[in-house]
């Protein structure tokens, strides 16, 4: 935006150009790149852990996903005649999140298709970063779920034994596939669930650390919460969306999730699906979430309620992906309803 003007008439000036632009002349050191790469860094520990939970092929799937997102972003921007901004880290982040929400036993070719849908259609055809009203990574997952329903709902893997991170590379995936805790709970009931996964402190412990079937990056509640708290500490996200989202899942599951009212297990509800990943990393996506704090709390509660509704009454065991996608386009509506409070309106109350 700065107009450059020659300063050759400045007798005392070294001969070069001065910048002339509108104030402020100082800017903070934060930038879009810094935010994106910080979030990426927060997702690296859960990724590394996924290798020890599901085996080395999670790295392959993630790499394919990240690379295809970056390539699709570059090609989209080139063909649409926009500046190529792959260095800002947003495509890398989308690729990482996309890999995190697909099962660890799928073909590494799936993320390529998802990347095309997420980045080209979901992001750039809607106007590029800032204008995509759906979360691109979740859009990619929804696309895969609709296109490859069998793979996306059955390619679950049990945590590997010991450090056998290469064990799934040798055998056929179908032979070892299992079911996610939420699916077991929904389709087979609590008795089978307890038989399969155990109960009590050891159940919560292993689920919190990440040793359970699930999507590549969603299992380790511990590392995801740690990264999320770091993002809050840095001021990149605030507590409003994660707290209201997780809180409403816990409360609603407690009320409606059990055999009778007020007998559900809120802690299990938070630890057994993608709630933590969704709350800290998906629902807080700047572009697709509201900006005012009141709107953010309502948005979080909306996602939590829809998640519980889909989990308990819907056709899928896990509902957070669709819950977030359903709330995404409401962000701007919520922002319109809950505007920030102006300092002081004119005397008399008129505009």
């Amino acid at each position, binding site marked *: 935006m700065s107009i450059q003007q020659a300063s050759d008439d400045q007798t005392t000036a070294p001969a070069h150009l001065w910048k002339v632009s509108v104030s402020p002349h100082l800017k903070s050191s934060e930038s879009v790149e810094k935010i994106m790469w910080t979030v990426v860094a927060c997702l690296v520990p859960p990724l590394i852990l996924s290798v020890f939970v599901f085996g080395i092929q999670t790295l392959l799937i993630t790499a394919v996903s990240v690379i295809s997102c970056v390539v699709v972003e570059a090609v989209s921007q080139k063909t649409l005649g926009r500046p190529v901004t792959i260095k800002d880290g947003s495509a890398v982040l989308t690729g990482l999140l996309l890999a995190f929400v697909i099962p660890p036993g799928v073909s590494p070719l799936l993320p390529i298709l998802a990347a095309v849908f997420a980045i080209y259609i979901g992001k750039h055809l809607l106007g590029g*970063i800032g204008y995509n009203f759906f979360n691109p990574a979740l859009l990619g997952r929804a696309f895969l779920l609709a296109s490859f329903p069998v793979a996306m709902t059955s390619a679950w893997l049990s945590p590997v034994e010991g450090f056998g991170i290469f064990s799934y590379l040798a055998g056929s995936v179908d032979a070892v596939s299992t079911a996610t805790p939420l699916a077991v709970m929904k389709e087979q009931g609590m008795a089978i669930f307890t038989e399969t996964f155990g109960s009590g402190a050891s159940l919560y412990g292993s689920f919190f650390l990440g040793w359970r079937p699930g999507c590549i990056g969603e299992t380790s509640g511990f590392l995801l919460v740690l990264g999320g708290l770091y993002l809050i500490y840095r001021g990149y996200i605030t507590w409003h969306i994660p707290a209201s989202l997780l809180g409403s899942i816990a409360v609603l599951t407690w009320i409606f999730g059990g055999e009778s009212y007020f007998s559900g297990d809120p802690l299990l509800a938070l630890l057994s699906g993608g709630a933590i990943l969704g709350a800290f990393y998906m629902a807080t996506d700047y572009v697709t979430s509201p900006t005012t704090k009141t709107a953010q709390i309502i948005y979080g509660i909306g996602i939590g309620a829809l998640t519980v509704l889909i989990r308990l009454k819907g056709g899928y065991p896990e509902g957070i992906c669709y819950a977030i996608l359903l709330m995404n386009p409401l962000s701007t509506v919520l922002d319109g309803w809950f505007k920030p409070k102006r300092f002081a309106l004119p005397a008399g109350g008129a505009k």
Partner: protein
Amino acid sequence: MKSLLTFPKGGVHPPECKAQTQGLGIEIMPVPDELELILGQHIGAPCTATVAKRDEVIEGAVIGEVQKGLGVPLHSPVAGKIKNLATSVHAVRVSAPSITIEVDREAAPVQYQKVDWQQLAGADLLAKIHDAGIIGIGGAGFPTHVKLNPPADSPVDTLVLNGAECEPYITADHRQMLENPGQIVEGAKIILKILGITRCFIGIENNKPDAIREMTKAAEQASGGEYSITIQPLQVKYPQGSEKQLIQAITGRKVPAMALPSAVGVVVQNVTTAKAIYDAVVYGKPLYEKVVTIAGKGIARQANLQVKIGTKVRDIVKYLGGLQPGLAKVVMGGPMMGFAVSSLDVPVTKTTSAVLFLTEDEIDTKPHSQCIRCGWCLDACPMGLEPKEIGIYVEANRAQDTAQFGVFDCFECGSCAYVCPAKRPLVQFIRLAKMKAKRQ
């Protein structure tokens, strides 16, 4: 220790960058060979020259008067000869009508006699302030005699002196409070007498503990009797020195949109304006000198310089040893609200508080990108506005529809653009919006 007050909503913490000049005492710069005095120094109608080419003037002589409308007279800072009535480079208006004076180096400096102002009535004091050409020299340039004569329907009960100096780099007010605390407090008493009130708060940000100490001492000596003058330490937060934010921090009152502070019973003056009022009333000395902070890595020597109004930046640069390599931006005023200039021929006006010579590493030069709706600008805005929406509307060629966002509440403090991670020129968008949008 009193608790530190601040305004509750918004605000940012830019690097203070005051260490390099706050220890430098006020230094009187030798008068250059010629001065250029812009005729429109204040908000309101510009002055009309009352002198002609080749006229001889003495120091302090009136050279410009406002014929019709709001304004104050302009005085010659030196004895000399009118060289020209032409135009000067102006930081905002590009060029502006001005008077050029050739300095007479032989003339003896004028000696001003101290008078006892306590004998004078409020109206006489007000007239002296008008005649001395005093305007709000903190930056806005509003004629002080108008501000000190609030409308009868909004009774004033509190005077707030603004010593916040929240803009980074600038330390001119800080030095005034250290070196002339007694005169500032005396100036406050003059204002209190004019307003017919007794209560004054002087707000100073807590990063100037020495100024708080000196001012407290001066206020204690002067207090007692009828006047109560209290030093109020403030948290360090930009834009603490904004009139509405300062009033809210100190008194808890909120000035409504499009209203003046007198609507909530407050008058705000800058501490340096109080000093100028002291000079005008006690010594009869018009406002024609200004302490200006010269800072930044792009100048050989940084300083707090007392210069004559009309001194060109070029002469200041020459006096301080020239420019340094790497200079990228010359800013008249602070880095948050000041104006970048493209020429060193800009003269200092009554409202110039700093000239900054910023190098590449001191300023931001990154190109801006699309809004990612992070909402940080909403958190930073002290007026509770939505800068991101205004920016998006302006980019979509809908600037005329931005009145709904309260765009006229914006006083362009730049907090939103400061925090924006996409480096969007939000103040520029908002200025454009203000030009196109209709006031409702």
